[in-house]
């Protein structure tokens, strides 16, 4: 799959998470994004440093600003199971707006064309680091890192695209 790009339609897919009642739920991406302005950012792995210390906090900090600029949903996805995503989300008690969704089998990451083989780091198939701005399922901005850096996929870069 070619990596998702500006002008593409966001593919549909199923992600999972624990809801407010702590029940395991499967969520369709389109149900979250259709007719809305959403930011989706992907990280290689829960509990890894750039993801935990820079990428996620950036979006949590700027959530208010993103929302006042019309963003309806801010979604973090990673190739981890929903139990791990729930535990990782709990390490950000101040977070109110960012939704942590699990792409446990990497199916959705594959649909976005953003998979990355991190087997030699003990991680297996994961996602590239990226951030997308999507309006009514149309991709308006697609910032994908080429490697492990954190240069274009942060909250500030998405704010610039709004």
């Amino acid at each position, binding site marked *: 799959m070619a990596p998702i790009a500006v002008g593409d339609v966001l593919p549909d897919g199923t992600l999972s998470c624990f809801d407010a009642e702590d029940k395991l739920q499967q969520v369709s991406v389109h149900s979250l994004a259709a007719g809305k302005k959403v930011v989706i950012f992907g990280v290689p792995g829960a*509990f*890894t440093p750039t993801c935990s210390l820079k990428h996620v906090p950036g979006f949590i900090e700027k959530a208010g600003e993103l929302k006042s600029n019309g963003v309806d949903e801010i979604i973090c996805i990673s190739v981890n*199971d929903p139990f*791990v995503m729930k535990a990782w989300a709990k390490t950000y008690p101040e977070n109110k707006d960012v939704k942590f969704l699990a792409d446990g089998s990497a199916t959705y990451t594959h649909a976005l064309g953003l998979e990355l083989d991190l087997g030699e780091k*003990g991680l*297996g198939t994961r996602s590239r680091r990226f951030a997308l701005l999507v309006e009514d399922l149309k991709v308006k901005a697609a910032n994908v890192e080429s490697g492990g850096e954190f240069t274009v996929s942060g909250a500030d870069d998405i704010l610039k695209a709004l």
Partner: protein
Amino acid sequence: MATNILRRAASSVMRETLLTGMLRRSYASVAVGSDIVSAAPGVSLQKARSWDEGVSSKFSTTSVKDIFKGKKVVIFGLPGAYTGVCSQQHVPSYTKNIEKFKAKGIDSVICVAVNDPFVMNAWAEKLQAKDVIEFYGDFDGSFHKSLELGKDLSAALLGPRSERWSAYVVDGKVKAFNVEGAPSDFKVSGAEVILEQI
């Protein structure tokens, strides 16, 4: 006449038990007396570690041979870090009995799961178990696959994982081996059971 009825009843019970056994789990290739190192040749595990530790250790792996050769090891496997029984019952059963294991001359008490080593590390810290027992990640499931202890838990949105099991291994030879009938059970794979078997 009576013997025939009994025989038929016994064999249908056996068939049912066998079938249920097969439906619930496939038989492991490892058993008491088998050599865990030759069952999993060339397989490595990833010691639970932070990313920085990973970088400084060049993401090195530990071979099954190095884990078991010449040592007395108690090892237990579970379906997933941060899941219910694993967090609340299985790991605590071993951490609170660590002194008993040490008193029996056990060199390593190891927890292994099909998770990456960074998740295992964060989970071990959360359970305050990191300095008590050792944690290893079987991130691609190869260790469990070699021992035929892999289990598809896609229905629980976990994907390919492992059975819940425990083993007492001396210099690579399996001396005791316990597998739960279902991964959500916690009847035979806890510390109390294996302590009796050492």
